């Protein structure tokens, strides 16, 4: 299998990370060497194996449905790069 520049463009869009053209080539090379290494898994037959979805084999505990964090609006907004009163500010979305 081989990851070409078109695939890099596609993954870059899906992961919302812009990749400059000159870096795309190097990235494709790196990813190909990693995927070559991962391909080893195809040596194994796994049709009848159940996937491991959770390492802790316990049922999830239920907690009572009550609000524990109250009046933390200031805390939530505190680290925002840009805000206005009680809102996060982002570049204009609607024309």
């Amino acid at each position, binding site marked *: 299998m081989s*990851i070409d520049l078109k*695939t*890099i463009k*596609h*993954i*870059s869009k*899906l*992961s*919302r*990370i*812009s*990749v400059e053209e000159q870096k795309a080539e190097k*990235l494709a090379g*790196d*990813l190909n*060497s*990693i*995927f070559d*290494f*991962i*391909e*080893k*898994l*195809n*040596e*194994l037959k*796994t049709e009848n*194996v*159940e*996937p*491991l*979805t*959770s*390492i*802790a084999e*316990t049922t*999830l*505990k239920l*907690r009572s449905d009550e609000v524990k964090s109250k009046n*933390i609006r200031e*805390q*939530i907004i*505190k*680290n*925002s*790069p*840009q805000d206005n009163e009680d809102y*996060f500010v*982002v*570049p*204009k*979305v609607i024309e």
Partner: protein
Amino acid sequence: MSDITKKTLSELVKDIKDKKLSSQEVTKAFIERSEKSKELNAYITEDYSSALDKAKKFDQKPNLNLKLPGIPMAVKDLFCTKNIRTTAGSKILSNFVPTYESTVTQNIWDEGAILLGKLNCDEFAMGSSNETSFFGNVQNPIDKNLVPGGSSGGSASAVAAQLTPITIGTDTGGSIRQPASFTGTVGLKPTYGSCSRYGIVAFASSLDQAGPMAKNVKDCALLQEVISTFDSKDSTSIDFKRNEYSKNLTNNIKGKKIGIPKEYRIDDMPKEIEELWQNGIEYIKDCGAEIIDISLPHTSYALPTYYIVAPAEASSNLARYDGVKYGFRAKGENLIDMYEKTRSEGFGAEVQRRIMIGTYVLSSGYYDAYYLKAQKVRKLIKNDFDEVYKKVDAILTPSTPSSAFKIGEKKDDPVSMYLNDIFTVPVNLAGLPGISIPAGHDAKGYPLGLQIIGKAFDEQNILNIAYAMEEKIAFKNKITDWWIK
């Protein structure tokens, strides 16, 4: 230079309880040494003046019933600390000041410890050499221009260099055990679900676990009993009966059955590592334990499995860094452009690579071929361990396939860097506890570690085995203080 920083955690606790030392004396000693050790670049954020204030307050009204009375401690910068910047070694979090505290660090402060500062690490804990940190390389105190390992590289360096009496790291694929091995220190990765993940910057949620890093096994046991608590804020925290690990620590391991997995004898393994392992086997026999040859047939599939599962989970966890709610934001022409530039400028190369691998293996048309396949192989790896644990109580392996390497040596070859974790990754995939203890030196005088892997929730047993071996090995770290001016 005072002798205070040479002491173990247990000695310092005793001295403070016996009123031979005050918290202020201890705190000052570690701050002074940290100040002279800037060349190691172990710290990202220092909090010395507030540490001194806290030590003063402690001494005015000392509560000597606590487990860590007035003990200063620096922690990996992956733990959220209230009102103290927490960066995860990343540009994207370089201005992030949490408004809450991680459960693990809260447990430590509740037992009387005092924060010295936040320690350097690979960006989002993705790395095996601390070279992916936005805040620069960390020096291994063992030798100049040597990596301390990673991702808990700053933590390992700080313990080995005596900048903190003890610390906590996190381990997703070896990030506590491999740096411990590279710096001649002890590091424990607890069973998955033993320590709460609440407030730890997430990397791969089904693998991440916090754990202690220390000068010796006893200190490690003491800190483990402080940090391991059930926590309803982490839905994968497990409610089991936790031991007082330090109190129950014993070097009596007579009759224990220790497995030696043949698959860990990899091709091209340096002779020194092979000898180290053989010596370890002899020490175990000397202690009256029994050696049993075992097989973990899917060992060689662990790393490829890890490099699907961990990036997949990381790509999902790191989707939250969008420049909107917190962290770094780049300017963009529109919302999408802002997202893409923020993530491109905010994440380093290794983190971007892993997000992209994860995105790809989870993307439409590839999920079954990669992610589902990896989850199935992960099951086979776990089954291997379940099977051998019917016959043995623990497993002995080398911690790493080599000693510490030079800064820059493996930076441009991701796969060769990943191979560092070949002996540690299977333990995370199976959710088991593992401890690395220093066990010898290579020809260059660099430390080498042995790993003891236990059954789930059997931390006491591997701590005991490590304790018994530590006594036999009588390891002495060769540190010259070369970085102190």
